[in-house]
């Protein structure tokens, strides 16, 4: 389904963008974007840790309502990574599109996004009512556990991308 003929037109478009050109022509652009991508990932994962560790119960003494302040931080960090990630993609799309680790990574990010929407629309309001030290319900814990597990896998898959090329 996702064979060369399918992705080639999309990949060519990405490759021809101005961003792609800059990424290939200026030698420090790629390492700089990588650094942004890494810093973004630590901010994103850290924000999720505060929220998810609280929901899971290990950080029960963090005020739940206050922990939610880290949601906009997580979204901001995700945007840093979305933009720097797009820059990598524009630099060399024909390398990324057929890469199995890249495909899985994108799939898991989508699932993590759905999981985050489930958290926001299904649990967020209820969780905000939790008193300090009070346990979250089981469903919320499943979402928090999934969130951490998915993001760990996403980080690992990102690191595996250069090693599954053939």
């Amino acid at each position, binding site marked *: 389904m996702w064979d060369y003929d399918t992705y080639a037109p999309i990949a060519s478009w990405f490759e021809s963008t101005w961003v792609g050109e800059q990424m290939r022509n200026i030698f420090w652009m790629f*390492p700089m974007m990588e650094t942004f991508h*890494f810093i973004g990932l*630590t901010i994103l*994962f850290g*924000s999720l840790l505060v929220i998810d560790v609280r929901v899971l119960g290990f950080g029960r003494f*963090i*005020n739940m309502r206050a922990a939610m*302040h880290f949601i906009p931080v997580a979204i901001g960090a995700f945007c840093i990574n979305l933009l720097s990630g797009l820059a990598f993609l524009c630099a060399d799309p024909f390398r990324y599109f057929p890469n199995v680790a890249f495909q899985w990574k994108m799939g898991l990010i989508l699932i993590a996004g759905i999981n985050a929407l489930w958290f926001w629309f299904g649990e967020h309001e209820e969780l905000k009512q939790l008193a300090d030290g009070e346990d979250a319900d089981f469903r919320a814990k499943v979402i928090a556990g999934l969130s951490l597990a998915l993001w760990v896998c996403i*980080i690992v898959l990102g690191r595996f991308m250069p090693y599954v090329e053939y």
Partner: protein
Amino acid sequence: MGFLVWLEEGALGVFIRESLWGYPIVLSSHAVGMATVMGVVVALNFRVLGYAKDISALAFDKLFLVGWAGFIINLISGLILFCNTPTTYFFQGSFQLKIAFIVMGGILMKVVMNSVRGDTSEGITKLLSAACIACWFGGVITGRLMAYV
């Protein structure tokens, strides 16, 4: 130098250079550990700098345990990665800077927590906190540079 050669020729060095999946697996652990330890450090310093003020900075104590777990993952995975080519890394400027940044960042984190608990003025505490974040980000930047310099 003799010690570095011994490390490079030792079992860990051979393993990380020659095993097919060893290197990417250890490298991924290093990235996950980084996200964990730095995630906690960044979140805590955001709080100290004045963001999400309604979280008690002291409630973060438990989160530090998570951060330490990340740090230990990275200490172990970092040592294994170092065995890849210790004779090169040891003399590499970006590696030396990276270690210096992490040591400084670690000490500053402790200093920041002490001033949160003590009666240090808010201005000084925030300054220390900003320096702490800068050191850890410096660690990421120099770590990335290691692959290019």
